[in-house]
């Protein structure tokens, strides 16, 4: 259990995690370490448990057994709000609040945190620029924006509080291929300097290869293979991994 000391540079560590939904076993004794400052991609088909794995990191789901450590400590259940402010979260379809303007969606939490209006404005402008979004869309409601713009705003919101960890639940999958390439570029731009530890969940091997430093293949709650994308592509550990690679070749 106390292998956490061995992973000093781990941002997230799963230790012997088991999770069931009723009769359905999602994970059985799963262990996994996500290194700090790197992007780790969890790749798997629908139902492989990858989203559940991601949601255990920000305590939207809880393991039945085992331990999830984040930032070197067990998740502080009594300080979840503060804990979650350190973790950016972006989902497929962006999940913007329909009644708020683009800007209000992004800056809501900062405002609730008591940030000064000047600081909010500065950070917001910074994020718009990083995401290559025009300032003119700030006051528009989400429904007036394109899917790509909404998704970029979702990333802005995830990054607003300058998080130590990013959780990305297929945020690039609900847009057209050209828009998706644009999203890859802004994400890479964000990660260029001081990279944020990132957990990316995707079913797209090509996306994982392009964006991730570490690739983990999940099938029915089991880790089939993990390693650098190049290593996984060079030597697939199972027919399933082979098929995943072939599907994007």
């Amino acid at each position, binding site marked *: 259990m106390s292998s956490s000391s061995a992973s000093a540079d781990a941002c997230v560590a799963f230790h012997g995690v088991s999770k069931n939904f009723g009769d359905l076993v999602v994970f059985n004794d799963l262990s996994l370490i996500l290194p700090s400052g790197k992007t780790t991609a969890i790749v798997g088909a629908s139902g492989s448990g990858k989203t559940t794995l991601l*949601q255990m990191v*920000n305590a*939207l789901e809880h393991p039945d057994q085992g331990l999830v450590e984040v930032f070197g400590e067990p998740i502080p259940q009594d300080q*979840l*709000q*503060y*804990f*979650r*402010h350190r*973790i950016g*979260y972006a*989902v497929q*379809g962006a*999940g913007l*609040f*329909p*009644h*708020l303007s683009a800007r209000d969606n992004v800056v*809501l*939490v900062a405002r*609730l945190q008591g940030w000064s209006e000047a600081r909010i404005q500065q950070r917001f402008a910074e994020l718009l620029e990083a995401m290559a979004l025009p300032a003119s869309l700030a006051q528009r*409601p989400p*429904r007036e924006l394109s899917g790509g713009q909404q998704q970029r705003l979702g990333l802005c*919101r995830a990054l607003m509080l300058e998080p130590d960890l990013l*959780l990305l639940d297929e945020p690039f999958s609900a847009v057209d291929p050209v828009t998706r390439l644009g999203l890859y570029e802004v994400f890479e731009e964000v990660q260029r300097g001081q990279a944020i530890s990132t957990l990316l969940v995707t079913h797209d091997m090509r996306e994982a290869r392009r964006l991730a430093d570490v690739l983990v293949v999940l099938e029915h709650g089991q880790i089939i293979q993990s390693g650098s994308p190049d290593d996984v592509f060079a030597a697939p550990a199972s027919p399933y991994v082979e098929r995943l690679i072939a599907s994007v070749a």
Partner: protein
Amino acid sequence: MLRSFFSAVFLVGLALALSVQANQSNPVRVASKNFAENYLLAEIVAQLLEGEDIAVERAFGLGGTLICYQALLNAEIDVYVEYTGTLSQAILQRPELTGRDELNSALTERGIRLLPQLGFNNTYAIAVRSQLAESLGLRNIGDLAKHPQLRLVFSHEFLERGDGWPGLSKRYALPQSVEGIEHALAYQAIADGAIDATDAYSTDGELSRYPLRVLADDLAYFPAYMAAPLVRTDWLEQAPAAAAWVRRLAGTIDAETMQRLNAKVAVEGMSYAEVASAFLDVQRQTLGLSARGSEMPTVRLWPQLASHVLRHLQLTGLALAAAILIGLAVSLVVFANRRLANAVVYFCGLLQTVPSLALLALMIPIFGIGFTPAVVALFLYSLLPIVRNAVTALSTVDPTLVRVAMALGLSRWQQLRHLRLPLSLPMIFAGIRTAAVISIGTATLAAFIGAGGLGEPIVVGLSLNDTDMILRGAIPAAMLAILAEFLFAAVQKRVSRGYQ
């Protein structure tokens, strides 16, 4: 946006509450039931007292015997005219008591006293269309037994009372199955041939207006219904002067006089006030009244309409404001707990199934009669649409958005304030809109417990079978409901802007 809405609801509620002035003086509160003769007698009592400079407050048209009697017991009213048969059968449920002294010995322990009788017996009678009576040879009530196909339709009170249909059908072995009707509508229905027989009061003015035959009560089933003012004994001590004046009416109205007075209202279309005033003028000497004639208050249509509309808005506005504030507060507390939420919605639905008049009657022991119980009843009716919509809307917000809100580190309150509540507003407003329209309609019934509003002309009109009068309440009430519908629809559209 949210804050200003709730402040507005609160302020409107407060303003309405303040606009309902409490009456500080101590007038004699004269009440009547909701049929013509009782209105008229109450008006006579009221004008008699006013002629002697005694202040009077009228609570006319209360919805039935029990509402009047409860209101008297609760000291919500001071005097109304009751009938001996009703006292023994319906109130005391001791049919063997017939004389005034017997009744008074039973009433004493309740603090109630029946004053000397006015002089006429208004007993129940069974009326049939003359033509039908002729062709079937109907003379006695017992003759009805030979014609099971006859459509007997009775007033709701008659159907329920021990001395009404249940006993009558047994005594005369009547085989017909029966239905209920508002008493004032029965005469028109029988004249139109829609029904064949109904209950009537033997002093009803309508008996001479329509071609009706009163069947003889050959088995002497119906007890005597001698009319007399009913009061509380403590009121007799508090207001001896007023009581003395009311006592002077004893023996001044025989059956013939009563039927004639009733006919002036029912047939000639005079107002209660006019008939009462004319009666008192004639009786001035006998009663020893002050010389000056009683003043006829001139009732003008528009100011009266305005005051009815204002009272109607006070009733519904206050009830709605309370239902919004309390309904939303309850919804916010329970929506997250599915079982609790279901229980609350179910309970509100249960309230809705209590018939309006019954709910109003149930309020009397707790809140008395008049404005307060009416507001409480309307409040209870308004809860269901508001709570059901609010609970549904709050608990069905897109789960992805809720997950995002949690992941962003929003507290439970912040999730509510910045996500669930704003997204639920359109549906919550739809509920408020429904509640507003329902309570504007239901508030017309509030007149049955003396709360006034647009129901008042309707209740008076029903007692007179006066369609004009009924429409004077019904049309503005319908227009108010439509207005509320449009107003809230506009607000709902406004708050829905920016949602998909």
